[in-house]
């Protein structure tokens, strides 16, 4: 194969390629730990899998987002960016990438053709995308593989958003010139062949094709390195440096880290070797990292599909490099920890499970993170919640500390329904179009919550089938919303478009309420009946009523339901009568108001909409039930507690002055 020349000593990971392997990189890079500069030589083998003849190339230079304040990232993206204040002190806080030379084959120099390009906005100061027009003779024919030799230099920024350095800790991500994705007509939303190569925005992440990476990283010899893929070779050099050679197959990205302080812990689950590189001050967190990783791998294997890679590397950043924590790269994730973290606050576990879940929704199923972040972040959150709640408990997986318990799924829902404006934006919107907030909660929490609703409607087993089918069909590919919806329709055998129209393409909320339960005596007919001669006055006979025995006594009872939100969901309604009888009704949820009516010897005691909480996105469960005998005890409980604490506070302050 074409990329074996420089990698002849590599061990092949997958004898049969798992993906199309469109974008393949051989990179030699040297880190200067003093200047924070990377000197890189990249050979890119890129294959045109479309039927188009392509007349230009486009690349991401992500690090230029940190070049100056005028980048689209720093202009647009304060909301949602991670990490510390970039505008701290020092001259070396900024980061950049420069392509110093680009050649096609070995000799055709493309460097003069390189131009900065802004497909998403008109910010001509943004340098996160370059475009290289090709003359006709160099146009890339269908099926052709081109070989590009790219020399580049990159300066790492001080870690602010995921990548960079902090003292002697280096986290190197989005660091090399990375080719965009060429989308042929019909692929995702493309109507004509085009590059999908977005600028780096504050809210958005990435999109890339699968390929093989052979990366040789040269670092000072005291550094310990972790990276995407599998270590092939470790070599000491004469100049007190060391070269690590890693190879990764069928992945969409390559990131690595170097620090002299890492401690290493390992564990394994079946074919997956888990390696944790942790900073010494967090050593006590190592078992928590490893346990949660293994549990999540196991859960995904059971409910989604097989993790095909032989290993997973987890990086625990030092406290001074925390802004690189909580991020996902192929076979390589970063966590966040704090040495004093109580056991009942499961954020180490939560982040680890989340980032591992991204191995499925981001890496294996490589959706476009710029345009449809809900497909990676939302799906990740949904499955992460499931894995964590299953492992640590539905009601205490996230927090179980000092009398406060919450599960992951319910905590995500609370985040969504508790938004100041849950209708701020619909899910289906490119990341950079959340201009006035809501990106995080809508993308992560709302998606997870409506996926739980889908799970409620179709049942857990069918939901697993949906996820498994989606995984099997779209792994190593780039699906979009339509593709997922098609799978839902196929697995359920129903047209579920109505569901997605409401939850994905609309910002409306779902809220049903039992307005009232009435229990009245059945009224006997009274008044004037008949026409002309036959006209007759009927009077209710009081005496007869009194004589009627208990069995004849009847109640006319009603349950009145209001639909408050615009989202319409079919549902069940459970009606409970005083004699313990229960009736489970079904309603399509369409009308704005609806009533259930009964004539029975017993009154209705209570009624509840959606008794199994299937419509998990209902923004208020509290108004879903109505009892004729409401219980004031909770009010007494919280009031007495409130009074107790106020009294204590009064006493405390009074005793001080």
């Amino acid at each position, binding site marked *: 194969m074409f990329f074996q020349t420089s990698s002849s000593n590599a061990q092949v990971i997958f004898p049969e390629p798992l993906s199309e392997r469109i974008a393949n990189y051989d990179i030699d890079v040297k880190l200067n730990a003093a200047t924070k500069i990377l000197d890189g030589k990249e050979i890119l083998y890129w294959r045109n899998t479309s039927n188009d003849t392509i007349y230009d190339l486009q690349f991401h230079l992500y690090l230029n987002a940190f070049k100056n304040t005028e980048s689209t990232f720093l202009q647009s993206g304060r909301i949602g960016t991670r990490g510390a204040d970039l505008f701290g002190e020092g001259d070396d806080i900024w980061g950049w990438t420069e392509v110093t030379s680009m050649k096609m084959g070995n000799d055709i120099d493309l460097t003069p053709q390189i131009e900065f390009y802004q497909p998403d906005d008109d910010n001509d100061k943004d340098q996160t995308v370059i475009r290289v027009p090709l003359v006709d003779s160099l146009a890339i024919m269908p099926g052709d593989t081109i070989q590009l030799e790219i020399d580049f230099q990159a300066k790492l920024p001080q870690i602010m958003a995921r990548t960079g350095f902090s003292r002697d800790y280096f986290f190197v991500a989005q660091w090399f010139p990375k080719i965009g994705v060429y989308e042929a007509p019909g692929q995702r939303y493309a109507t004509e062949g085009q590059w999908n190569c977005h600028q780096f925005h504050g809210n958005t992440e990435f999109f890339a094709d699968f390929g093989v990476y052979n990366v040789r990283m040269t670092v000072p010899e005291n550094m310990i390195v972790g990276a995407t893929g599998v270590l092939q070779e470790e070599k000491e050099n004469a100049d007190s440096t060391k070269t690590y050679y890693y190879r990764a197959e069928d992945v969409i990205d390559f990131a690595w880290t170097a620090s002299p302080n890492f401690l290493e812990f390992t564990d394994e689950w079946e074919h997956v070797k888990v390696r944790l590189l942790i*900073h*010494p*001050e*967090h050593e006590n967190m190592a078992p928590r990292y490893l346990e949660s990783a293994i549990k999540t791998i196991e859960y995904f294997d059971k409910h989604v599909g097989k993790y095909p890679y032989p290993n997973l590397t987890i990086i625990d950043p*030092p*406290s001074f490099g925390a802004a690189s924590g909580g991020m996902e790269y192929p076979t390589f994730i970063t966590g966040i920890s*704090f*040495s*004093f973290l109580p056991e009942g606050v499961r954020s180490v576990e939560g982040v680890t499970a989340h980032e591992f879940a991204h191995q499925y929704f981001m890496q294996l199923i490589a959706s476009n993170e710029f345009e449809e972040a809900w497909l990676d972040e939302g799906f990740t959150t949904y499955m992460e919640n499931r894995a964590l709640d299953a492992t640590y408990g539905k*009601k205490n997986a996230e927090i179980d500390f000092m*009398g*406060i*318990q*919450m*599960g992951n799924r*319910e*905590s995500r*829902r*609370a985040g969504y*329904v*508790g938004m100041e404006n849950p209708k701020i934006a619909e899910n289906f919107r490119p990341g950079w179009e959340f201009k006035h907030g809501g990106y995080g909660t809508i993308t992560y929490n709302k998606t997870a919550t409506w996926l739980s609703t889908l799970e409620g409607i179709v049942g857990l087993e069918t939901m697993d089938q949906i996820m498994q089918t989606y995984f099997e069909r779209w792994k190593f590919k780039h699906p979009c919303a339509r593709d997922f919806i098609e799978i839902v329709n196929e697995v359920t055998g129903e047209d579920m478009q109505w569901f997605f129209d409401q939850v994905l393409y609309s910002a409306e909320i779902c809220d049903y309420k*039992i307005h009232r*339960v009435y229990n009245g005596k059945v009224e006997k007919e009274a008044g004037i009946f008949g026409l002309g001669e036959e006209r007759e006055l009927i009077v209710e006979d009081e005496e007869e009523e009194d004589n009627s025995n208990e069995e004849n006594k009847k109640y006319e009872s009603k349950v009145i339901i209001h639909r408050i939100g615009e989202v319409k969901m079919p549902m069940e309604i459970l009606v409970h009568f005083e004699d313990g009888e229960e009736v489970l009704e079904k309603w399509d949820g369409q009308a704005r108001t609806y009533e259930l009516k009964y004539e029975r010897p017993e009154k209705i005691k*209570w009624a*509840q909409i959606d008794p199994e909480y299937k419509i998990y996105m209902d923004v*208020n*469960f*509290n*108004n*879903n*039930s*109505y*009892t*004729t005998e*409401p*219980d*004031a*005890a*909770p*009010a*007494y*409980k*919280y*009031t*007495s*507690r*409130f*009074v*107790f604490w*106020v*009294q*204590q*506070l*009064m*006493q405390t*302050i*009074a*005793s*001080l*002055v």
Partner: protein
Amino acid sequence: MIRAFFQSIQKTLFVFPLILLVYLVNLGLGLLLALPYFKVFRGGIGNSMEPSKLLAGYDHTVYRDLMEQIEGSIAVVDGQTPWMILIFVLLSIFFNGGIIGAMAASQDISRKSFWTNCRHYFGRFFRLSIISIIAYGILAVIIALPLAAYFKGISSSFTSEQAFVIPAIIGAGIFLFLFSFLSMSNDYAKVKIVAENSRSALRMFFSGLKFSFRHFFSAYIFYVLLAMILLVGGFTYWKLSGVVGTSSMFTIILLFIIQQILVFIRTSIRIWHLAYASSLYQNLQRGGRW
């Protein structure tokens, strides 16, 4: 110290009706807030069955949905709370004169002399309170400034969060010690204001400090003892509330009674400290052995 200890128990028992008074005022003000709080909470529950899940324990979903509904109204009650606390603190300063006066006299606890003493000392005690608040503020600044400077200094060289957490814990410990010492000496200042019938709160503030320094062990050991009793009480409550639970109206009432017993003990302990301060001062003034 031993003698002062037993005398303080005597004195505390002696002013028992006053303890009851302070407790009832405390409870009364609490109940004034309880009324609107209960109304809001009860209104939020409406006819829903969900909130019953809050009885067995905490349920995040139910609690958040309920709060989402009543947050605004609860905030109104929360907004009234500081005022109610302020009223209690002022009343407590007012009562202190009567209580310490009764302890100093040891035999006269007539209603009339109590109210007279309350009025008589209120101005000075109020000034003393202002001075002590300023002193707490100064103390906080004295501890916080070097700590902040230290944190800033290490911000570019720290290697782990321990570098922040450990000094912060030490700082908090020092603060807690000095803060408690100040609060303790404050009670001695009050005793001295009454005993020496001094008009200068500021002079008595320093005089109280001086006294507390000079008799540090006999004063502070007792103070810590009371703090320990409170801690044990708090811990017992925490354990007990877990056992009793709130699953029914009966246990809710039972827990309320336990809570009120705890508040009453707290009130008593607070007054016990004043009694001890009064006894210790009297013993040392008389040059008695301690």
